[in-house]
């Protein structure tokens, strides 16, 4: 679909969300260096279009599972930077009360069944959510984000088989950034296009430019429509690239600066900004206004995190078990 068919407000929302993801990550990197954030983080700088485009095609009550590189998914599904930054800073006010951190930061109420420290760990859970929706006859879908490394895990294959077998309302969204941790994809899998693996489970696999937010949005929309119509899952492979290392501090000896530069020339945010201007969807001043709005939001988020209290030592004991019995039926 041509960009000219989109309402202006929607395009500006794409832009705002992508900038929010990027700037959140850059702030997090800075605040980690500055000492506010005590733990390690995996940044998704460069991969903003997959998170934003895919989540934009979902309804509020659809669910996602996320990954170790999950900050962008949380922002894109509606997460608030102040509670995210507070969680990264391990504060009481963070999304998980300071007990989750980057790898587990989530808000269940936004339909995010967790960021996940385990590669492919969220995929079998998304199958369960999709199964629940199907059983109850609901029109909801479950979208599972994972990276190129995850499709070599057994959990992916078990999940794909179940989803294909039962025609579950599920989307397998592979953010293929070409590296599983520090090893290139061609040393991890004998196929270049990972989406062809969907064929073995009898559902379509599509490739999309993961740096093009409208292309991602449209591919996801189509997959969502299939899922809601009872036609089963879709595997979407968004080809993209991470600018930073696997984790902050990664020496990145496994790839060349030239490769990074080539991808940066296809930057998802800069390219989209250019398209907005070229098609006169927004003026330079409108775009700058969005950018400064995000800067203020993040200033506030960092301030909120820095001013928030540490969790009490006693709170470490909370939440291992709950004493509720919602299943009581007699």
């Amino acid at each position, binding site marked *: 679909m041509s960009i000219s068919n989109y309402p202006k407000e929607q395009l500006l929302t794409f832009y705002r969300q992508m900038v929010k993801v990027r700037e959140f990550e850059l702030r997090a990197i800075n605040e980690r260096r500055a000492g506010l954030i005590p733990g390690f983080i995996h940044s998704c700088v460069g991969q903003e279009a997959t998170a934003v485009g895919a989540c934009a095609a979902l309804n509020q009550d659809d669910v996602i599972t996320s990954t170790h590189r999950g900050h962008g998914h949380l922002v894109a599904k509606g997460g608030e930077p102040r509670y995210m930054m507070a969680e990264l800073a391990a504060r009481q006010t963070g999304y*998980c009360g300071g007990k989750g951190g980057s790898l587990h930061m989530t808000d269940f109420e936004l339909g995010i*069944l*967790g960021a996940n420290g385990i590669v492919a760990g969220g995929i079998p859970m*998304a*199958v369960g959510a999709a*199964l*629940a929706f199907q059983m109850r006859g609901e029109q909801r879908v479950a979208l599972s984000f994972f990276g190129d490394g995850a499709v070599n895990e057994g959990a992916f294959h078990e999940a794909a088989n179940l989803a294909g077998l039962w025609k579950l309302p599920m989307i397998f969204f592979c953010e293929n950034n070409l590296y599983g941790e520090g090893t290139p994809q061609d040393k991890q899998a004998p196929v270049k296009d990972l989406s062809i693996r969907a064929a073995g489970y009898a559902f379509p696999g599509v490739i999309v430019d993961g740096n093009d937010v409208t292309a991602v949005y449209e591919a996801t929309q189509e997959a969502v429509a299939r899922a809601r119509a009872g036609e089963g899952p879709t595997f979407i492979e968004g080809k993209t690239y991470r600018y930073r290392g696997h984790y902050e501090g990664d020496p990145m000896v496994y790839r060349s600066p030239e490769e990074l530069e080539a991808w940066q020339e296809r930057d998802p945010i800069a390219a989209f900004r250019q398209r907005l201007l070229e098609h006169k969807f927004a003026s330079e001043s409108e775009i700058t206004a969005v950018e400064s709005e995000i800067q203020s939001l993040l200033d506030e988020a960092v301030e909120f995190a820095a001013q928030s209290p540490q969790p009490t030592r006693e709170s470490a004991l909370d939440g291992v078990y709950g004493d509720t*019995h919602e299943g009581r*039926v007699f």
Partner: protein
Amino acid sequence: MRELTYKDALNEALFQVMKADERVFCIGEDIGVYGGAFGVTAGLIEEFGEERVVDTPISEAGIAGACVGSAVTGMRPVGEIQFMDFVTISMEQLVLQAAKIRFMFGGKATVPMVLRMPGGSGTGAAAQHSESLENWFVHVPGLKVVMPSSPYDAKGLLLAAIEDDNPVIFIEHKLLYKTKGHVPEEMYTVPLSDTKVVREGRDITVVATSIMVNRALEAAEQLAAEGIEVEIIDPRTLNPLDEEPIIRSVIKTGRALIVHEAVKTGGYGGELVSRIMESEAFDYLDAPIRRLAGLDIPIPYNRTLEYHTVPQIESIVSEVKRIVRGEV
């Protein structure tokens, strides 16, 4: 008094709770028309259909994941792992996801799932179909671990596990499925974390789990004929443990023997011994606390070898005598 087998008690519990709560469904391998490898889900598919009695491929990580994901989105799944041994393939979803979701997401999510699985030896099924892995799960905060030893407890504990909002590992025993006992027809729960004194006695406390409770009861009858009165305690829920009845009993008897089928090294017995030693019962001990457990070997195929790998009635009798007579 109405009697049912352990298997039929479980089946009745599933039947009743699925009637009462449409959020509850069963999922596992061969649980539909086949009725489950041990028949626990027999007849459910005829009553509730394949939407609520979900046959899966042989896919244990998938089963566990489907339970976790559906539980966090409003269902109350009861998964079945065909043999406890195969749960090793589900471990990531159970240990790293289900157990930790409530905690690591700041207490906001609940995972109301039950995963049933038959453990134990005694069927000539050899090393990969006879495991007793309960302590793997006891070692994971966030999971509850339940092991019923009687038909009454099987039904009541399963219903309690299903209504609980935490992930529960529910370990049945293959040799118990055909045992009979009193089971009320109505729905009832046996509370989780409620240790039971199964038999009262003054001379020694025997803490036993699962089928070892039954073997200890038979041993106690033989020992009673020789004037030794054994108190038998069944924790029923291994974690979180209600330890107080155990401590109280050891204070009364001054002696303790732990009996379980799982291998001794790293087994639940070590935990129970420590709980007793760390309590005020220490001052009342008249003898070292002993453990009678599985030998530290895989379960052998040969029936004689298998028999002697795990505690039996006669080994319990002789171990109790040695302790009571001060021979250890």
